[in-house]
């Protein structure tokens, strides 16, 4: 099993519903976020292009954050989901520095927090909150090893990319382009 996500940049309108749904689902304090939206523009008026992406932890196969965690709080769960065990975290911030995607933040309660792919929902067979709420239905989640999963089907006929592949982290969020 290998959980992953595909996000269709052709459909995303950048509404940020994924951000607020994550916030209410995961009790993320105001002023912080586990996911966010990036708008990348290219060109000059009137020859323009915009790519809009919902970003979050890439749940990398080769996660620098897990490797550099001094206590083992950062670890892989089944299916490759990277999580932090809050009460084993000393808040040193090494993982934050190591992440090329800036996917982690220091929770005001003193530990490092990040996207869990909504593990608590996924365990019950539900989609992550961001995927479930997206009005444009531009996010696909599931098991890459299952050819019939939403994510596998989404990747089948489309071109896609990952962010910062040169960092060698083997990220598991795929952007359909």
């Amino acid at each position: 099993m290998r959980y992953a996500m595909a996000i269709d940049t052709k459909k995303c309108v950048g509404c940020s519903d994924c951000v607020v749904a994550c916030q209410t689902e995961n009790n993320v304090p105001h002023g912080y976020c586990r996911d966010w939206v990036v708008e990348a523009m290219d060109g000059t008026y009137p020859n323009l292009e915009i790519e809009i992406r919902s970003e979050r932890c890439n749940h990398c196969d080769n996660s620098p954050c897990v490797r550099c965690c001094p206590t083992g709080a950062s670890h892989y769960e089944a299916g490759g989901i990277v999580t932090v065990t809050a009460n084993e975290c000393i808040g040193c911030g090494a993982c934050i520095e190591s992440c090329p995607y800036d996917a982690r933040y220091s929770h005001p309660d003193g530990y490092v927090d990040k996207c869990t792919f909504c593990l608590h929902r996924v365990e019950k067979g539900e989609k992550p909150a961001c995927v479930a709420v997206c009005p444009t239905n531009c996010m696909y989640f599931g098991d890459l090893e299952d050819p019939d999963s939403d994510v596998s089907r989404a990747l089948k006929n489309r071109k896609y990319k990952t962010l910062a592949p040169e960092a060698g982290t083997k990220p598991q969020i795929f952007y359909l382009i």
Partner: protein
Amino acid sequence: MKTRRDFIKISALGTAGIAVAGSAFSLMKGKPLFAQNNDKKPFDDGDLERTPTYCEICFWNCAGWTYTNSDREIIKILGNDDDPHCNGRLCPRGTGGVGMYTDKDRLKKPLIRVKKEDGKSTFREAEWDEALDVVAANMKKVAEEHGVESIALFNHGSSGHHMGHLLKAFGSTNIVAPSYAQCRGPREVGFTATFGAGVGSPEPTDIRDTRCMVLIGSHIGENMHNGQVQEMAQAIDNGATIITVDPRYSTAASKSKFWLPIKPATDIALLLAWIHVIINEELYDKAYVEQYTYGLDLLKAHVKNMTPEWAYGITTIKPDVIRKTAREMGNASPSTIVHPGRHATWYGDDTQRSRAIAILNALLGSWGRRGGFYFKEALHLPHYPTPQYPSPKWSWKDALNGKYPMAGLSVSNALIDATIPAEDNKHQIHAWIVSGTNLPLTMPDKDNLKKAMDALEFMVVVDTMPMEITGYADVVLPECTYLERYDDLRVSPHREPNVAIRMPATEPMYDSKPSWWMAKQLGERLGLGHYFPWDDYKEVIEWQLKELGTSLDEMKNIGVKIFDRDSGALYLRDGEDMEFNTNTGKIELYSTDLAHHGFDPMPKYTAHPEPPAGYYRLNYGRAPMHTFSRTANNLNLIDLMDENKVWVNPKVAKLWGLKKDQLVWLKNQDGHVSTFPIKVRITERIRWDSVFMVHGFGHSNKKLTQAYGRGANDSELITTVMIDPIMGGTGLRGNFVTFLTEDPGKETN
């Protein structure tokens, strides 16, 4: 908008861009090792109770579920899977509706205006009984002195209905919502003049099955009209062509096959040129046009000289692009939607622009066709038995004095004018009830609004938040949020008729109350108790649901119920007989109604004023995470966007020496300066002849502790209003601004 700390890092890895949502953070230096309280877990849905509701953050009114914990606190709101408005997916505002409930700045107690010793006014808190007594006494006094018709209700949203019932029972029908004359009114009139039916809400656009959709200044995706955004994403999946006409590179433009960066204020010229091409290249749906429409020959003669070459000189859109896009529309016909838009009050000839849009749809045969416009259907909500309303001696129509003959609904700006004493004002308004609409950030021409409010004998405001309008009230009544109250059943039209219920998920916070309760209390004080034969509004809903063949118990479990259609098919069948509700019984390409009232029966292009040197046309619009001024204090949504910025083309920025995020004040052509400064966003997405800002920011009431002074308020810069003579709509886009880089030292309250 906050920028994620390492955004530069991402850029360095090869992608340029900016973070539009998400939050900055700082490392928690100096925190103790192993924090004590660090085992927070997300809530388990199994431990939460869910209550059905429909959203009140915007008019789309998506149905959802409010989740409460064991302390009856609201934790989250999720969409209802069965709801055709949202299909289980609320938009960011609906998801963030929790922030409206938890807002610490909410109105908590009734407030009564009192004069201090120094002559200045202040509010004191009051108990409900006293506040309601004061409101009822003043309503009686104004009714006795000037006639009950001199009381008007300005409203928006669900709570307005309850106050409307009260006012009609009292004897006045002067009830108005700015959503008509400041928003969608012209399009309703333009479409009614053509098809004999307005567009309504939600729009019956069959986007999910369209092959070509044309957006003219309509920025779906930034306006988060949920069902439409969802269907636009489906259309993108299906490979539909999207054509976007907008001087700004909108989100929709970025999803479009064709973006036409039109010169602002010239849309009608483009539309007429499209009509010219579609008729002359015979791209129209011939059988449909022959069977259902009236006036093709007249129209053909009318647009004879309106060639793409003619339009090029006006719109700056190249003739071959005009032809190519017209052919795209024709090839996809009848599954083509030329979208009616929503906020249509731009330049004062808006009914005519909407007519041109309607005519294009008629030529393409899209009205009543798959992938065009479907025939919507709504449930008829049975009327709970209450006595007949008395007949008023005069209404808003009389107050128009013969102006705006085709206004289908009351005209807010006309009622504001009617509040200002004048010799020829025979129908003066003397008191206002304002419910759920923040007029100072909604109405243009703030001096006129101020004049009207100064002339009022009495104003009561019903709201959940200390919006700017509350500052002008004599009495403020704190309403509980939509999550804490019953309201009317939602029966808005859709492909299939349906009903949605709103039930309170928890007790109202503070000393706030539902509107239905306030209306009943006031009714009893005005001797109108017999119009309110219920103790709890739940009884009304329960009765109505029973009449509809369901029940409160069933609706509590399902939230939304879908019924079978009984008005016929969703689309016209080939050659089906159809009579339209117009004078000719046909779809009128030539409008006999407009001709009858002395207006152009077919749309014409008129040149509108252009910005003077050093000024830029002020365009405004929406962001997906906010609803006008209503959400600017909502912490969940502030996390997504906490201020507006003025979009400036890099060439213009260079000319003025403006830097990214530099604070500037905006001054308009009439010398009005924004109360607050606004940050500059330098972007290629905007033309060099205009600027853009998101509407709804720049709140000036300090009681809105989050929203106060964040960004600037476009409404106070809209002082030139181009009125549509057909229906009274306020054209708002004829205003021009320039930049002040030094603090003009404006007073803020």
